[in-house]
């Protein structure tokens, strides 16, 4: 049996698939089609991703009410593709909209770590940027960027829903630049601040 198996090794399905795969890969690399397809697919995924940013449905404090208002008929974030998801495993954007207390700090880090790449973080409101009016408090972190890398800052207390939609627009422009870079590799990128033109 074993002798006969070796004779038919070339027609064993798994080995056949691997061989075909290797041959095709070499061919594509040689003709540069692979590189072309890679760029095309990357651009396509980038376009699809930034046009439908799934935001985690997390509301910490007052800015959450403005986030909710941005989803309601008057301001309507949904026409920009912004949809709220309940699970971090299904969302692209973590919108931090309130002060992060010591009790909540490692929970928000855990939420961030549960989100799959590529993921982005928006700090909305003064409390998430720098602690806000509670910067002197014994229980509040001075900004969420002490524990999570932040991409866009939206100042305001609370920022108007229009400012939040503008923040999403600036995040989309940033995604065009950085593509699908992982969140730990963006140290050189300057974070975007809404309102500074």
């Amino acid at each position, binding site marked *: 049996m074993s002798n006969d198996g070796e004779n038919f090794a070339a027609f064993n399905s798994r080995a056949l698939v691997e061989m075909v795969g290797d041959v095709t890969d070499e061919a594509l690399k040689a003709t540069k089609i692979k590189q072309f397809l890679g760029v095309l697919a990357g651009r396509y995924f980038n376009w699809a991703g930034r046009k439908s940013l799934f935001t985690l*449905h*997390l*509301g*910490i*404090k*007052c800015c*959450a*009410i*403005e986030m*909710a*208002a941005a989803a*309601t*008929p*008057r301001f309507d974030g949904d026409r920009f593709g912004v949809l*709220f998801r309940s699970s971090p495993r299904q969302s692209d954007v973590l919108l931090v909209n*309130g*002060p992060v*207390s010591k*009790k*909540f700090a490692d*929970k928000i880090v855990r939420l961030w770590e549960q989100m799959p790449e590529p993921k982005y973080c928006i700090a909305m409101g003064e409390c998430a940027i720098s602690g806000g*009016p*509670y910067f*002197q*408090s*014994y*229980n*509040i972190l001075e900004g969420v960027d002490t524990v999570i890398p932040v991409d866009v800052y939206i100042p305001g*207390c*609370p920022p*108007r829903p229009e400012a939040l939609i503008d923040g999403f627009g600036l995040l989309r422009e940033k995604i065009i630049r950085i593509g699908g870079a992982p969140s730990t590799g963006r140290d050189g990128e300057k974070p975007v601040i809404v309102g500074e033109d």
Partner: protein
Amino acid sequence: MTHGLWTLRVKVDGETIVDTDAELGYIHRGVEKICEDRDFTQITPYCDRLCYVSAMTWANSYIYAAEDLLEAEVPERAEFIRLISAELQRLASHLMWLGAFGPDIGSLTLMTWCMRDREMFLDLLQELGGSRMHYNYPRIGGVKRDIPVGFATRMIAKIKLFERRIEEYEMLLDESTIWLVRLQGVGYTKAEDMVEAGVSGPNVRAAGVNYDVRWAHPYSVYDQVDWEPAVEKPTSVKGADCYDRYRVRMEEMRQSSKMILDAIEKIPGGKNTNYSAGDEMIMTKAPTRAPEGATGFSNYECTRGASQFYIKGGGEGRGKNPYRLSIRSPMFITIPYVAKTMIGYKIADIPAIMGSFDPCIGETDR
């Protein structure tokens, strides 16, 4: 999302809840400690951010305590403006509650409808205070600015439109079988149990007792406007269920509308005049220091219950800061009580019961 950030640990036996434990403190900001380092005027924005959905009522509540401490006089026109702003805020807050309660039960339509109507009142409050939320509007001794020109006309038009909208909501909800089945028979609470636990506000009024701080421990000019507390008649001997709590808030919205329409007609100085800021019609000069040993206390009907402030004077800056500022939040008392009410019901009843009590964690965690 719109109720707030807290944890409820539930022990279940199949689908039935056996025990609950509430965990708060995720947005504890230490406001009481921070306020020991601020002037009395600088504390007003912090009180706006306590319960962010009904900011004007909390700012008013603090201002009454500060006026008690500093022994300040308030002109009558300012009291009427405070009443109008507080009742507008009550309308906006109840609409936010309904807009969050609907999705809890499953009705996403309510979210869009209520937020659309809430925008009407946020525009009015923006004319008064300058921002959609967190107005920093009342001052010790009066209010910051007078009502703008044309404000009365716009407000009356919007409220008259809103009164028809309330009927639209009731038409949508009271004829919906899902709404009735999910709310009726769920979350029974009796009046005496609630009061002994310290619950107040619309939750107690749903159980058939018309306790309202606005007449029982009076403040401002509520005795000069035409209104009645909204009280429900619970249909069961076991007390009020979620449906009664929903109905009492709809009725409160009607009463608030009535109050505003009455107050704007009775305002001293007329509804179309606009006094400049600092004018004696809307603000009096108040002392800024409180000696040691002076205390101020206020009992105020916020949208969720009775909120109280207790301020001890004699802090730093020779009395410019308070020595101790203590805040009593109605929701801090209600949430553990509600956690115990849920025992015996099913898991699917948790959002209905929690939502019907209208929690706001901003004021709970301070």
